[in-house]
């Protein structure tokens, strides 16, 4: 028998075990909640059901129908205000912004010609970011980048799970009215490499440290950073309204 066992009363050992068990129980509850939470927040891939893919396609088509796109821009080039978004297509907060705030900005400001938005894609989360981003940038040559980006966000999978497969990307390109084989084949093109390099350079110049990050200002002028307190529409609306002078 060790000296410890001799000196420590039995009731104390029992309480020690109880304390350790209580801690383990709390930790187990936290882990279980975290796992359930993470699973619930991971969107299902588009290929799971045809109806979900169709719903996403119809939603994006309605959102962007009739709005001019030019490469990485959406909105009229003479819109008085420009918003720049730095985003990683695997970033859940970018997807949240795309689902909750972008539709309101497009409806109220982009469609009436008051605002144009530029997508500057970054791929720092992992391999799925890179393949998704290259596909979106290849679609920019056909002025369909925003269709592809929005469909990617609506079908975003768990980070680096391989969700941005050629099958999913091909389906999204097809739903965007593009030839999947041609666009997927252009992912390594000079144009795509140029857009990747330009966005990275611009992000470094703007000291972007995470996504989504934004710059907002009058079109044609230097765009200062926009640091909203929330990704919900109000701070974006307020900043755009201020620039529009209303």
């Amino acid at each position, binding site marked *: 028998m060790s000296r410890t066992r001799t000196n*420590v009363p039995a009731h104390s050992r029992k309480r020690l075990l109880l304390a350790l068990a209580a801690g383990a129980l709390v930790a187990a509850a936290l882990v279980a909640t975290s796992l359930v939470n993470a699973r619930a927040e991971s969107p299902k891939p588009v290929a799971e059901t045809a109806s979900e893919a169709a719903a996403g396609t119809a939603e994006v088509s309605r959102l962007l129908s009739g709005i001019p796109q030019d490469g990485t821009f959406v909105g009229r080039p003479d819109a008085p205000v420009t918003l720049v978004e730095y985003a990683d297509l695997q970033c859940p907060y970018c997807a949240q912004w795309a689902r909750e705030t972008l539709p309101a900005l497009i409806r109220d400001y982009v469609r009436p010609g008051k605002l144009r938005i530029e997508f500057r894609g970054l791929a720092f989360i992992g391999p799925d970011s890179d393949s998704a981003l290259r596909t979106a940038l290849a679609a920019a040559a056909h002025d369909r980048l925003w269709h592809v980006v929005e469909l990617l966000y609506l079908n975003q999978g768990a*980070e680096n799970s391989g969700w941005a497969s050629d099958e999913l990307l091909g389906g999204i390109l097809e739903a965007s009215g593009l030839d999947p084989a041609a666009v997927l084949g252009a992912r390594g093109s000079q144009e795509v490499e140029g857009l990747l390099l330009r966005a990275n350079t611009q992000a470094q110049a703007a000291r972007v440290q995470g996504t989504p990050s934004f710059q907002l200002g009058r079109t044609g002028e230097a765009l200062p950073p926009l640091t909203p307190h929330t990704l919900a529409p109000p701070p974006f609306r307020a900043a755009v309204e201020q620039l529009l002078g209303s």
Partner: protein
Amino acid sequence: MNERRYVAATGALAALGAGIAGYLTFLHYTDGRIACPTGGCETVQSSSYAELLGVPVALLGLVAYAAILAALAWPREAGRWLALSAAVAGTLFSAYLILVQAYEIGAFCLWCLASDGVVTAIAALAFLRVRAADRHAGAAR
């Protein structure tokens, strides 16, 4: 080490942990940028594992450190057990979060790892403190 030194060391570590968790919680609610040399902090903090039912994990950490600090101020025996339970829970949950960073997210948050180290050190101190107090009580009988 005597009881007073255990309390002082645990208190200092819990204050450090509360500082880290407070910093991450503040950034969460203000959309601030994390000072992070590797860039992994943003990735981890924006992942679906950074919140539990809408509550930031960093805020849970802050509450845990606050509980440990409160336990240090409690009557000795109850406080010792509470501090040990809270630190063990924190250590085990931290181990899970490290696995998540390594195998699910594919990036590491240095601030989170620092907090993991702090809570593990607190758990070790809390365990040793309980054992020392028990031995003392056993010897006094």
